[in-house]
């Protein structure tokens, strides 16, 4: 089964080599700016994202695929604004100029929120993202959240999602071989089929979790601080980019 862990596209561009912490913070800053952007800022960010895509040698069509699962939803929101915003009419029944402007701007925001995050995952391996998150969460220790425990849990999710999907396929095939039809039937029948799919999956997962916990303790796992194979190190260019981004965000958010 071809489930891919994320959409990482190998490469050696400046964007690929940036410290993952810088990239994560950059995406957060960019997201805030995107959510508050007006038309002018939107154009600036579009150029910025296009530039980054070019520098990182990412395929634009590959990047745009990230938006696909939510596309229908975005179109719906766009149409609602187009038709239900009061204002000057444009030559289309019920639509208004203000509605068009708001619809386009909002849809642009949602698309670019996803695109900027997609650039992060296309240029950073899941392992790097994990180390980045682990380091960024360290200050949360006083709140009772151990970044090390969170990192171990996240990495287990990444480890087991593909395995669970394989298992789900096996269960589904076994049931179809026994004549189960997942597309037809009344609501009660569908509910039963969902249960017949989910019960074995959850049962296996519970048994697996029991064994995993024993295995982890057997390998000396204890909650709290541990060390990693790779340590992150910020370079001068990492710091430079971080500072530049912060200034740009400040300008983008507060000038208008």
């Amino acid at each position, binding site marked *: 089964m071809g489930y891919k862990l994320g959409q990482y596209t190998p490469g050696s561009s400046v964007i690929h080599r940036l410290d993952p912490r810088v990239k994560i913070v950059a995406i957060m800053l960019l997201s805030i700016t995107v959510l508050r952007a007006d038309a002018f800022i939107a154009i600036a960010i579009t150029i910025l994202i296009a530039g980054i895509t070019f520098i990182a040698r990412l395929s634009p069509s590959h990047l745009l695929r990230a938006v696909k699962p939510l596309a229908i939803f975005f179109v719906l929101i766009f149409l609602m604004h187009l038709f239900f915003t009061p204002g000057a009419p444009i030559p289309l029944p019920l639509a208004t100029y203000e509605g068009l402007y708001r619809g386009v701007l909002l849809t642009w925001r949602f698309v670019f*929120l996803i695109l900027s995050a997609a650039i992060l995952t296309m240029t950073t391996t899941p392992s790097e993202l994990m180390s980045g998150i682990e380091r960024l969460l360290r200050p949360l220790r006083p709140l009772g959240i151990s970044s090390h425990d969170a990192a171990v849990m996240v990495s287990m999710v990444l480890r087991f999602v593909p395995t669970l999907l394989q298992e789900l396929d096996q269960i589904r095939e076994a049931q179809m071989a026994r004549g189960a039809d997942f597309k037809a039937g009344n609501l009660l029948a569908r509910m039963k089929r969902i249960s017949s799919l989910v019960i074995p999956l959850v049962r296996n997962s519970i048994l697996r979790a*029991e064994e995993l916990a024993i295995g982890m*303790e057997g390998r000396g796992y*204890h909650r709290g601080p541990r060390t990693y194979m790779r340590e992150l190190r910020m370079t001068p260019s990492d710091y430079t980019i971080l500072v530049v981004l912060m200034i740009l965000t400040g300008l983008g958010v507060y000038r208008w």
Partner: protein
Amino acid sequence: MANLRTIGSGMSVRGMVFAAMFAALTAVGAFIMIPIGPVPITMQTLFVHLSAALLGSHLGALSQLIYILVGVIGLPVFHGGVGGLGVLLGPTGGYLIGFVAGAYITGKLIEMREKPRFLWIAMSCVAGLAVIYILGVIQLSVVAGLPLTSAIAVGVVPFLIGDAIKMIAATFITSKLRGMIKL
């Protein structure tokens, strides 16, 4: 394995592993699409109910928090295979935050009864679901600039039939598997 040792206090390693496993299951739920009602629905909320009912309020909410964290670092584990911080900040992000709060509420309500019956578990799931919808609709309305009525029309109504079925399925599955986990 009741006398299995665990080092450290508070949450056990087993608890952690269970939370991680249910986070993974919720992610898998995003890939199970079943055509019910007007739109194809995914199974995440089924696993939100299950993590709350089987793991309890604390670990159930933790499992959903980990699920969000995995999605935020960009793994395609949100509805139908999207990921990234953008989704959390976008129009549908409120539902995801609702998963954490909803799991907590469902878990708390179930924990109030020594031996919860079918109806009590079902009602606890309804309460959790209500929390998910409230947070979801608020963020949808704010971020997408929609009036509340439109947000409900887009963000609640199409999913009601599917959610009713998932809720009953979750209650049924819980009654089957509840004895398996001793935390």
